[in-house]
Protein backbone atom coordinates (compact mmCIF):
# COMPACT_ATOMS: atom_id res chain seq x y z
CA UNK A 1 0.00 0.00 0.00
CA UNK A 2 1.58 3.23 -1.11
CA UNK A 3 1.40 6.41 0.91
CA UNK A 4 -0.93 7.96 -1.69
CA UNK A 5 -3.42 5.15 -1.23
CA UNK A 6 -3.14 5.56 2.52
CA UNK A 7 -3.98 9.26 2.29
CA UNK A 8 -6.99 8.60 0.05
CA UNK A 9 -8.22 5.84 2.36
CA UNK A 10 -7.85 8.23 5.29
CA UNK A 11 -9.90 10.82 3.36
CA UNK A 12 -12.68 8.27 2.75
CA UNK A 13 -12.63 7.25 6.41
CA UNK A 14 -12.80 10.82 7.70
CA UNK A 15 -15.62 11.58 5.25
CA UNK A 16 -17.57 8.57 6.52
CA UNK A 17 -17.09 9.66 10.15
CA UNK A 18 -18.21 13.19 9.27
CA UNK A 19 -21.27 11.76 7.52
CA UNK A 20 -22.30 9.74 10.58
CA UNK A 21 -21.65 12.69 12.89
CA UNK A 22 -23.68 15.02 10.67
CA UNK A 23 -26.63 12.65 10.73
CA UNK A 24 -26.62 12.76 14.52
CA UNK A 25 -26.32 16.51 15.01
CA UNK A 26 -28.66 17.57 12.25
CA UNK A 27 -31.29 15.48 14.00
CA UNK A 28 -31.39 18.12 16.75
CA UNK A 29 -33.20 18.47 19.09
CA UNK A 30 -32.25 22.16 19.46
CA UNK A 31 -31.11 24.59 16.81
CA UNK A 32 -27.80 25.04 18.60
CA UNK A 33 -27.19 21.31 18.14
CA UNK A 34 -27.63 21.77 14.43
CA UNK A 35 -25.06 24.55 14.37
CA UNK A 36 -22.50 22.03 15.63
CA UNK A 37 -22.80 20.49 12.16
CA UNK A 38 -21.34 23.65 10.64
CA UNK A 39 -18.32 23.19 12.90
CA UNK A 40 -18.08 19.51 11.99
CA UNK A 41 -18.26 20.06 8.23
CA UNK A 42 -15.80 22.92 8.67
CA UNK A 43 -13.04 20.91 10.36
CA UNK A 44 -13.90 17.56 8.73
CA UNK A 45 -14.17 19.10 5.28
CA UNK A 46 -10.82 20.86 5.72
CA UNK A 47 -9.24 17.55 6.78
CA UNK A 48 -10.71 15.67 3.79
CA UNK A 49 -9.67 18.37 1.33
CA UNK A 50 -6.12 18.59 2.69
CA UNK A 51 -5.77 14.80 2.50
CA UNK A 52 -7.06 14.85 -1.09
CA UNK A 53 -4.80 17.77 -1.99
CA UNK A 54 -1.65 16.01 -0.81
CA UNK A 55 -2.84 12.55 -1.88
CA UNK A 56 -3.70 13.59 -5.45
CA UNK A 57 -0.79 16.10 -5.59
CA UNK A 58 -3.13 18.95 -6.52
CA UNK A 59 -2.09 21.99 -4.43
CA UNK A 60 -5.03 24.22 -5.60
CA UNK A 61 -7.39 22.03 -3.55
CA UNK A 62 -5.80 23.62 -0.45
CA UNK A 63 -7.43 26.91 -1.43
CA UNK A 64 -10.82 25.21 -1.28
CA UNK A 65 -9.93 24.02 2.24
CA UNK A 66 -9.04 27.61 3.16
CA UNK A 67 -12.33 28.89 1.73
CA UNK A 68 -14.29 26.17 3.55
CA UNK A 69 -12.68 26.99 6.89
CA UNK A 70 -13.26 30.72 6.54
CA UNK A 71 -16.85 30.46 5.32
CA UNK A 72 -17.79 27.89 7.97
CA UNK A 73 -16.75 30.40 10.64
CA UNK A 74 -18.72 33.21 9.00
CA UNK A 75 -21.83 31.07 8.66
CA UNK A 76 -21.68 29.82 12.27
CA UNK A 77 -21.50 33.38 13.57
CA UNK A 78 -24.53 34.34 11.49
CA UNK A 79 -26.49 31.24 12.54
CA UNK A 80 -25.72 31.77 16.22
CA UNK A 81 -27.12 35.29 15.98
CA UNK A 82 -30.50 33.81 15.09
CA UNK A 83 -30.38 30.62 17.13
CA UNK A 84 -29.88 32.63 20.30
CA UNK A 85 -33.07 34.53 19.44
CA UNK A 86 -35.11 31.51 18.53
CA UNK A 87 -36.81 31.00 21.85
CA UNK A 88 -37.72 34.63 22.39
CA UNK A 89 -41.31 35.31 21.46
CA UNK A 90 -41.17 37.99 18.79
CA UNK A 91 -38.12 38.30 16.62
CA UNK A 92 -39.62 40.54 14.00
CA UNK A 93 -39.28 43.63 16.16
CA UNK A 94 -35.73 43.09 17.33
CA UNK A 95 -34.10 44.06 14.09
CA UNK A 96 -33.94 47.73 14.92
CA UNK A 97 -31.01 48.02 17.24
Amino acid sequence: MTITNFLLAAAAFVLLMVAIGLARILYGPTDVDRILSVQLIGSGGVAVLLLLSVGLKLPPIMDVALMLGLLATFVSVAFLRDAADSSSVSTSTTEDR
Partner: protein
Amino acid sequence: MTLVFACEVVLAGLLVAIATWTIVARTAFAAIVVFMVYGLLLAIVWVALSAVDVALTEAAIGGGVTSIVLLGAASRLRGSKAAVPSVSFPFKITAGVLCAVVSAGLAAVVFSLPDVAPTLAPVAKENLAESGLGNPVAAVLFVFRAHDTLLEKVVLLLALVGVWSLASDSAWGGVPALRVYASPSRILVFLDQILPPIGIMIGIYMFWAGASQPGGAFQGGTILAAMWLLTMMARLQDVPSISARWLRLLLVVGPMAFLAVGLAGFFFADSFLAYPPSISKPLIIVVEATLTLSIGVTLALLVAGPPERLPQQ
Protein backbone atom coordinates in the same frame (compact mmCIF):
# COMPACT_ATOMS: atom_id res chain seq x y z
CA MET B 1 -8.32 4.51 -8.14
CA THR B 2 -10.89 2.36 -6.40
CA LEU B 3 -10.15 4.25 -3.19
CA VAL B 4 -11.02 7.52 -4.87
CA PHE B 5 -14.23 5.88 -6.06
CA ALA B 6 -15.01 4.71 -2.52
CA CYS B 7 -14.64 8.31 -1.39
CA GLU B 8 -16.97 9.44 -4.14
CA VAL B 9 -19.65 6.86 -3.32
CA VAL B 10 -19.71 8.04 0.30
CA LEU B 11 -19.86 11.63 -0.93
CA ALA B 12 -22.69 10.99 -3.40
CA GLY B 13 -24.74 9.08 -0.82
CA LEU B 14 -24.26 11.82 1.76
CA LEU B 15 -25.15 14.51 -0.76
CA VAL B 16 -28.46 12.88 -1.72
CA ALA B 17 -29.32 12.21 1.94
CA ILE B 18 -28.61 15.84 2.90
CA ALA B 19 -30.59 17.17 -0.07
CA THR B 20 -33.57 15.02 0.94
CA TRP B 21 -33.26 16.36 4.46
CA THR B 22 -33.33 19.95 3.17
CA ILE B 23 -36.67 19.24 1.50
CA VAL B 24 -38.36 17.30 4.31
CA ALA B 25 -37.01 19.11 7.41
CA ARG B 26 -39.82 20.36 9.65
CA THR B 27 -38.70 23.86 10.62
CA ALA B 28 -37.32 26.43 8.22
CA PHE B 29 -34.26 27.03 10.42
CA ALA B 30 -33.33 23.34 10.37
CA ALA B 31 -33.80 23.20 6.61
CA ILE B 32 -31.47 26.18 6.14
CA VAL B 33 -28.73 24.73 8.36
CA VAL B 34 -28.96 21.50 6.39
CA PHE B 35 -28.84 23.48 3.14
CA MET B 36 -25.65 25.17 4.33
CA VAL B 37 -24.04 21.78 4.99
CA TYR B 38 -25.29 20.77 1.53
CA GLY B 39 -23.52 23.73 -0.08
CA LEU B 40 -20.21 22.98 1.63
CA LEU B 41 -20.50 19.28 0.68
CA LEU B 42 -21.13 20.26 -2.92
CA ALA B 43 -17.81 22.10 -2.81
CA ILE B 44 -16.11 18.76 -2.03
CA VAL B 45 -18.09 17.13 -4.88
CA TRP B 46 -16.79 19.76 -7.31
CA VAL B 47 -13.26 18.96 -6.18
CA ALA B 48 -13.98 15.32 -6.98
CA LEU B 49 -15.11 16.42 -10.47
CA SER B 50 -11.77 18.29 -10.84
CA ALA B 51 -13.53 21.64 -11.07
CA VAL B 52 -11.65 23.52 -8.37
CA ASP B 53 -12.80 26.95 -9.56
CA VAL B 54 -16.41 25.88 -9.26
CA ALA B 55 -15.69 24.34 -5.85
CA LEU B 56 -14.45 27.69 -4.58
CA THR B 57 -17.50 29.51 -5.95
CA GLU B 58 -19.90 26.91 -4.58
CA ALA B 59 -18.36 27.01 -1.08
CA ALA B 60 -18.45 30.81 -1.08
CA ILE B 61 -21.82 31.50 -2.69
CA GLY B 62 -23.83 28.28 -2.53
CA GLY B 63 -22.81 27.35 0.99
CA GLY B 64 -22.02 30.77 2.38
CA VAL B 65 -24.00 33.80 1.32
CA THR B 66 -27.11 32.03 -0.06
CA SER B 67 -27.80 30.38 3.27
CA ILE B 68 -27.26 33.71 5.06
CA VAL B 69 -29.84 35.39 2.82
CA LEU B 70 -32.33 32.59 3.49
CA LEU B 71 -31.56 32.72 7.19
CA GLY B 72 -32.37 36.43 7.29
CA ALA B 73 -35.77 35.75 5.74
CA ALA B 74 -36.45 32.77 8.04
CA SER B 75 -35.78 34.77 11.19
CA ARG B 76 -38.07 37.59 10.02
CA LEU B 77 -40.87 35.20 9.15
CA ARG B 78 -40.55 33.28 12.41
CA GLY B 79 -42.77 35.75 14.24
CA SER B 80 -45.67 35.46 11.82
CA LYS B 81 -48.32 32.93 12.74
CA ALA B 82 -49.87 32.65 9.31
CA ALA B 83 -51.61 29.35 8.60
CA VAL B 84 -49.86 27.01 6.19
CA PRO B 85 -52.27 24.80 4.28
CA SER B 86 -51.49 21.11 4.43
CA VAL B 87 -50.90 19.17 1.26
CA SER B 88 -52.95 16.03 0.73
CA PHE B 89 -51.25 12.65 0.60
CA PRO B 90 -52.47 11.67 -2.91
CA PHE B 91 -51.10 14.98 -4.22
CA LYS B 92 -47.72 14.20 -2.67
CA ILE B 93 -47.71 10.74 -4.24
CA THR B 94 -48.59 12.16 -7.66
CA ALA B 95 -45.87 14.79 -7.37
CA GLY B 96 -43.40 12.15 -6.19
CA VAL B 97 -44.12 9.92 -9.18
CA LEU B 98 -43.83 12.86 -11.56
CA CYS B 99 -40.48 13.91 -10.11
CA ALA B 100 -39.21 10.33 -10.17
CA VAL B 101 -40.04 10.24 -13.90
CA VAL B 102 -38.08 13.47 -14.42
CA SER B 103 -35.11 12.04 -12.50
CA ALA B 104 -35.29 8.77 -14.43
CA GLY B 105 -35.33 10.69 -17.71
CA LEU B 106 -32.24 12.69 -16.74
CA ALA B 107 -30.51 9.52 -15.52
CA ALA B 108 -31.26 7.91 -18.89
CA VAL B 109 -29.64 10.91 -20.59
CA VAL B 110 -26.55 10.51 -18.40
CA PHE B 111 -26.52 6.78 -19.18
CA SER B 112 -26.71 7.30 -22.93
CA LEU B 113 -24.11 10.06 -23.24
CA PRO B 114 -21.81 9.56 -26.24
CA ASP B 115 -18.63 7.60 -25.53
CA VAL B 116 -16.46 10.33 -26.98
CA ALA B 117 -17.55 13.43 -25.11
CA PRO B 118 -17.57 16.72 -27.03
CA THR B 119 -15.05 19.09 -25.48
CA LEU B 120 -13.66 22.56 -25.96
CA ALA B 121 -10.73 21.91 -23.65
CA PRO B 122 -8.11 21.57 -26.44
CA VAL B 123 -9.28 24.83 -28.06
CA ALA B 124 -9.18 26.63 -24.72
CA LYS B 125 -5.74 25.25 -24.00
CA GLU B 126 -4.41 26.25 -27.42
CA ASN B 127 -5.52 29.85 -27.06
CA LEU B 128 -4.55 30.10 -23.41
CA ALA B 129 -1.14 31.60 -24.19
CA GLU B 130 -2.78 34.47 -26.09
CA SER B 131 -4.80 35.52 -23.05
CA GLY B 132 -1.69 35.81 -20.93
CA LEU B 133 -3.43 33.89 -18.13
CA GLY B 134 -2.52 30.50 -16.73
CA ASN B 135 -5.96 29.45 -15.53
CA PRO B 136 -8.15 28.17 -18.38
CA VAL B 137 -11.40 28.86 -16.50
CA ALA B 138 -10.39 32.48 -15.90
CA ALA B 139 -9.45 32.72 -19.57
CA VAL B 140 -12.93 31.52 -20.57
CA LEU B 141 -14.56 33.94 -18.11
CA PHE B 142 -12.56 37.03 -19.03
CA VAL B 143 -11.40 36.48 -22.59
CA PHE B 144 -13.29 33.87 -24.59
CA ARG B 145 -16.73 34.56 -23.13
CA ALA B 146 -16.18 37.98 -21.58
CA HIS B 147 -19.64 39.27 -22.56
CA ASP B 148 -21.21 36.56 -20.34
CA THR B 149 -19.17 37.71 -17.39
CA LEU B 150 -19.92 41.39 -18.03
CA LEU B 151 -23.66 40.70 -18.20
CA GLU B 152 -23.49 38.59 -15.06
CA LYS B 153 -22.14 41.61 -13.18
CA VAL B 154 -25.04 43.62 -14.56
CA VAL B 155 -27.44 40.91 -13.33
CA LEU B 156 -25.96 41.24 -9.83
CA LEU B 157 -26.48 45.01 -9.92
CA LEU B 158 -30.01 44.65 -11.29
CA ALA B 159 -30.85 42.23 -8.50
CA LEU B 160 -29.62 44.81 -6.00
CA VAL B 161 -31.74 47.53 -7.66
CA GLY B 162 -34.69 45.13 -7.44
CA VAL B 163 -34.06 44.44 -3.75
CA TRP B 164 -33.73 48.14 -2.95
CA SER B 165 -36.90 49.00 -4.84
CA LEU B 166 -38.82 46.85 -2.34
CA ALA B 167 -38.16 49.41 0.39
CA SER B 168 -41.13 51.40 1.64
CA ASP B 169 -41.23 55.01 0.44
CA SER B 170 -40.39 56.43 3.85
CA ALA B 171 -37.22 54.35 4.14
CA TRP B 172 -35.87 55.04 0.66
CA GLY B 173 -32.20 55.94 0.74
CA GLY B 174 -31.98 54.70 4.32
CA VAL B 175 -30.10 51.95 6.06
CA PRO B 176 -30.69 48.22 5.37
CA ALA B 177 -31.97 46.36 8.43
CA LEU B 178 -29.29 43.72 8.55
CA ARG B 179 -29.87 41.63 11.64
CA VAL B 180 -27.04 42.25 14.07
CA TYR B 181 -26.13 40.91 17.49
CA ALA B 182 -28.07 42.85 20.12
CA SER B 183 -25.18 42.64 22.56
CA PRO B 184 -22.09 41.10 21.00
CA SER B 185 -20.06 39.19 23.59
CA ARG B 186 -16.40 40.04 24.06
CA ILE B 187 -15.23 36.82 22.47
CA LEU B 188 -17.26 37.61 19.34
CA VAL B 189 -15.77 41.09 19.19
CA PHE B 190 -12.32 39.51 19.51
CA LEU B 191 -13.07 37.14 16.61
CA ASP B 192 -14.33 40.02 14.51
CA GLN B 193 -11.24 42.06 15.22
CA ILE B 194 -8.83 39.29 14.34
CA LEU B 195 -10.53 37.51 11.44
CA PRO B 196 -11.32 40.30 8.92
CA PRO B 197 -7.68 41.35 8.36
CA ILE B 198 -6.78 37.72 7.67
CA GLY B 199 -9.90 37.32 5.54
CA ILE B 200 -9.17 40.41 3.46
CA MET B 201 -5.69 39.08 2.82
CA ILE B 202 -7.13 35.72 1.74
CA GLY B 203 -9.66 37.52 -0.49
CA ILE B 204 -6.90 39.43 -2.25
CA TYR B 205 -4.88 36.24 -2.55
CA MET B 206 -7.86 34.45 -4.17
CA PHE B 207 -8.23 37.18 -6.77
CA TRP B 208 -4.48 37.36 -7.41
CA ALA B 209 -4.02 33.60 -7.63
CA GLY B 210 -7.02 33.47 -9.99
CA ALA B 211 -4.89 34.52 -12.94
CA SER B 212 -2.73 31.43 -12.88
CA GLN B 213 -4.57 28.85 -10.79
CA PRO B 214 -8.12 28.32 -9.52
CA GLY B 215 -9.55 31.43 -7.87
CA GLY B 216 -10.72 34.78 -9.16
CA ALA B 217 -12.76 37.91 -8.64
CA PHE B 218 -15.90 36.15 -7.46
CA GLN B 219 -14.28 33.98 -4.87
CA GLY B 220 -12.20 36.89 -3.59
CA GLY B 221 -15.17 39.27 -3.62
CA THR B 222 -17.33 36.85 -1.65
CA ILE B 223 -14.71 36.59 1.07
CA LEU B 224 -14.54 40.38 1.28
CA ALA B 225 -18.34 40.49 1.55
CA ALA B 226 -18.32 37.85 4.30
CA MET B 227 -15.72 39.78 6.29
CA TRP B 228 -17.61 43.05 5.96
CA LEU B 229 -20.86 41.39 7.06
CA LEU B 230 -19.02 39.84 10.01
CA THR B 231 -17.87 43.21 11.30
CA MET B 232 -21.33 44.69 10.78
CA MET B 233 -22.99 41.82 12.65
CA ALA B 234 -20.74 42.31 15.66
CA ARG B 235 -21.53 46.05 15.45
CA LEU B 236 -17.90 47.02 15.03
CA GLN B 237 -19.03 48.93 11.98
CA ASP B 238 -22.33 50.56 11.10
CA VAL B 239 -24.45 49.38 8.22
CA PRO B 240 -24.06 52.17 5.64
CA SER B 241 -26.98 54.12 4.24
CA ILE B 242 -27.64 53.11 0.64
CA SER B 243 -27.55 56.69 -0.54
CA ALA B 244 -23.91 57.10 0.51
CA ARG B 245 -21.94 58.26 -2.51
CA TRP B 246 -18.86 56.11 -1.81
CA LEU B 247 -21.08 53.06 -1.65
CA ARG B 248 -22.70 53.75 -5.02
CA LEU B 249 -19.29 54.40 -6.52
CA LEU B 250 -17.90 51.10 -5.24
CA LEU B 251 -20.92 49.27 -6.63
CA VAL B 252 -20.38 50.43 -10.19
CA VAL B 253 -16.61 50.82 -10.41
CA GLY B 254 -16.02 47.19 -11.40
CA PRO B 255 -18.63 46.87 -14.15
CA MET B 256 -17.69 50.37 -15.41
CA ALA B 257 -14.00 49.45 -15.66
CA PHE B 258 -14.97 46.23 -17.46
CA LEU B 259 -17.22 48.12 -19.85
CA ALA B 260 -14.59 50.81 -20.47
CA VAL B 261 -11.97 48.19 -21.31
CA GLY B 262 -14.54 46.47 -23.51
CA LEU B 263 -15.34 49.67 -25.42
CA ALA B 264 -11.64 50.48 -25.76
CA GLY B 265 -11.42 47.16 -27.58
CA PHE B 266 -13.16 48.84 -30.53
CA PHE B 267 -10.26 51.25 -30.91
CA PHE B 268 -7.17 49.36 -29.80
CA ALA B 269 -8.08 45.82 -30.81
CA ASP B 270 -10.56 44.66 -33.41
CA SER B 271 -13.85 44.34 -31.51
CA PHE B 272 -15.85 44.85 -28.33
CA LEU B 273 -14.17 43.21 -25.32
CA ALA B 274 -11.07 42.34 -27.30
CA TYR B 275 -7.82 43.09 -25.51
CA PRO B 276 -4.60 44.18 -27.25
CA PRO B 277 -2.47 41.01 -26.88
CA SER B 278 0.61 42.77 -25.50
CA ILE B 279 -1.17 44.18 -22.43
CA SER B 280 -4.03 41.72 -22.07
CA LYS B 281 -2.87 40.31 -18.75
CA PRO B 282 -2.42 43.66 -16.92
CA LEU B 283 -5.76 44.84 -18.31
CA ILE B 284 -7.53 41.72 -17.06
CA ILE B 285 -5.88 42.08 -13.66
CA VAL B 286 -7.05 45.70 -13.33
CA VAL B 287 -10.58 44.76 -14.36
CA GLU B 288 -10.59 41.84 -11.95
CA ALA B 289 -9.30 43.97 -9.07
CA THR B 290 -12.09 46.53 -9.43
CA LEU B 291 -14.61 43.74 -9.96
CA THR B 292 -13.50 42.04 -6.75
CA LEU B 293 -14.31 45.23 -4.82
CA SER B 294 -17.64 45.77 -6.56
CA ILE B 295 -18.70 42.15 -6.16
CA GLY B 296 -17.81 42.23 -2.47
CA VAL B 297 -19.94 45.33 -1.86
CA THR B 298 -22.84 44.10 -4.04
CA LEU B 299 -23.01 40.69 -2.36
CA ALA B 300 -22.88 42.19 1.13
CA LEU B 301 -25.70 44.62 0.28
CA LEU B 302 -27.79 41.86 -1.28
CA VAL B 303 -27.48 39.98 2.01
CA ALA B 304 -28.32 43.12 4.02
CA GLY B 305 -31.60 43.54 2.10
CA PRO B 306 -33.77 46.57 1.34
CA PRO B 307 -33.38 49.75 3.42
CA GLU B 308 -35.79 49.86 6.36
CA ARG B 309 -35.04 52.97 8.36
CA LEU B 310 -33.58 56.39 7.83
CA PRO B 311 -30.08 57.18 9.07
CA GLN B 312 -29.72 58.82 12.51
CA GLN B 313 -32.83 57.34 13.99
